[in-house]
């Protein structure tokens, strides 16, 4: 057996073992510290979120805004019917809601740590002309 073949087969064995080990480590890490934070959070809010969305976007399946203008399944710990979005990995298309700026930064009555909004709210600038639907 040539040196190169021996090296390649060894590399292959190491690669497969490394992958198995990495997967085992991943499995173990999910059982560890991370879940404590999640448990505390979910206990606090009484169960929240199920899909691959971190903000409550509009999720399209069958949509008639005259009947229900927002898809509350994204907010709801219990998804509504089949308009359900456990993740968007398979969603072929979806509507993104037209953003409406609702933020007001009030002048602080007491001194508070500086915020970017105190001088120039980035979002307002970004969203100019789109708001006030």
């Amino acid at each position, binding site marked *: *057996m040539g040196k190169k073949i021996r090296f390649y087969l060894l590399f292959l064995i190491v690669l497969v073992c490394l992958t198995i080990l990495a997967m085992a480590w991943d499995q173990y890490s999910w059982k560890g510290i991370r879940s404590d934070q999640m448990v505390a959070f979910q206990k*606090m809010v*009484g169960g*929240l979120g*199920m899909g691959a969305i971190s903000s409550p976007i509009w999720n399209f399946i069958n949509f008639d805004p005259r009947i229900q203008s927002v898809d509350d399944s994204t907010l709801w710990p219990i998804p509504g019917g089949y308009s359900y979005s456990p993740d968007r*990995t398979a969603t072929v298309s979806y509507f993104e809601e037209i953003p409406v700026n*609702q933020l007001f930064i009030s002048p602080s009555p007491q001194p508070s740590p500086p915020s970017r909004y105190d001088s120039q709210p980035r979002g307002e600038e970004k969203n100019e002309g789109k708001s006030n639907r």
Partner: protein
Amino acid sequence: MKGNQTGDMSRHLNLLFTATANILRNKVRTILLILCLMAVLFPWITAISISEGIKFQSLLSVEEGADIYVTSDYFGSNGPIPLDYLDRFRKMEGVVSVFPRIVGRAYFVNRLATIVGILPENLPKSIHLARGRTFLEKGEVMVGKGLAQEFGLQPGVRFSLSINPSKLLKVMGIFDADATIWSSNLILMAFDDAGEFFKMKGKATDILVYTRPGYGSVLAKEIQEAGWDPPLRVQDKALVKRYFQRGFNYKAGVFTALYTVAFALAIPALLVISGFGQTERKKEIGVLKATGWQTQEVMEMVAIENLVISLTSAPLAILMSMVWLKWLNGAWIAQFFIAEIGLMAPFPIPSRFLPLPSILAFLFAVILTMVGSLYSTWRTAAVPPAEAMR
């Protein structure tokens, strides 16, 4: 008998070494094939592992949530529920505790945020926050790391939203990024504050009922059938879990089906790279057959070549996906699988690398390469060697 077995073993080993030598000899072809397979497998593994990560977090949200969720039936949809029900539910047998909750949404600049109002007594004594503290007084809120990062929010910043401009809210704490992806764009406040904010005092979006073990379904049925006016919508943990499993299986199934189509489309590309009908390979097979190799041995060598290439590609794709998701936190790629997170996620991308998808990835690679070469090899090996060498 033993001699035969040893001979067989040596033959298989010889074929393995020869196949590996062939792979190494055709470096360009091998590298192209491995890269092609990785390009096909990597997005699939990434998507499935993110999906599994979210599934894990979702299951946790169901397990750690309430046993029963009650809302008003508002023309068939969920509607706000008066707080009068709290006492009625508390009196039911098997109920441990009952809490109201408000879950709503509002735009924070151009970003939709989830607004959750809970009773201050529901705040855990020790919750790990990235910065600041939990809310204690009226008007104080805690915000998610995503919002804080995007808009530069810090403890002490005050803001109000156009739903109720008179309701001034003050950021007191910022959630730790590890606390599920759904904390990212969250504004958490006291229940009363949320009621005031949405101008819905005395009402909750849902009432959470915690029961003694085994009472969940019975109590849900009891509440459902009690004949309230207006009627109530009741969903228990088992039902949520069913939706959760059905939803995830459905979505993962659709995604895999779509991806299988992509895999199928990749086959012709792999056929070209793996040298389908290549004269040199045809001639080589002809020479092997002419010098005494059997069709079965030629097939075995080609199958081992594909197996070795698949064994290289699948783990490399898995490791690459792992590095990308764990170390680079899914930079750029995660936005295709988790909505609204942009280039760099403000929270750790949940990803789980389970054995089954990994085995499937390997099998996909094997099928792709085998389909690409076994049939053409068999066709060449099955004809008389003189014809193959021509």
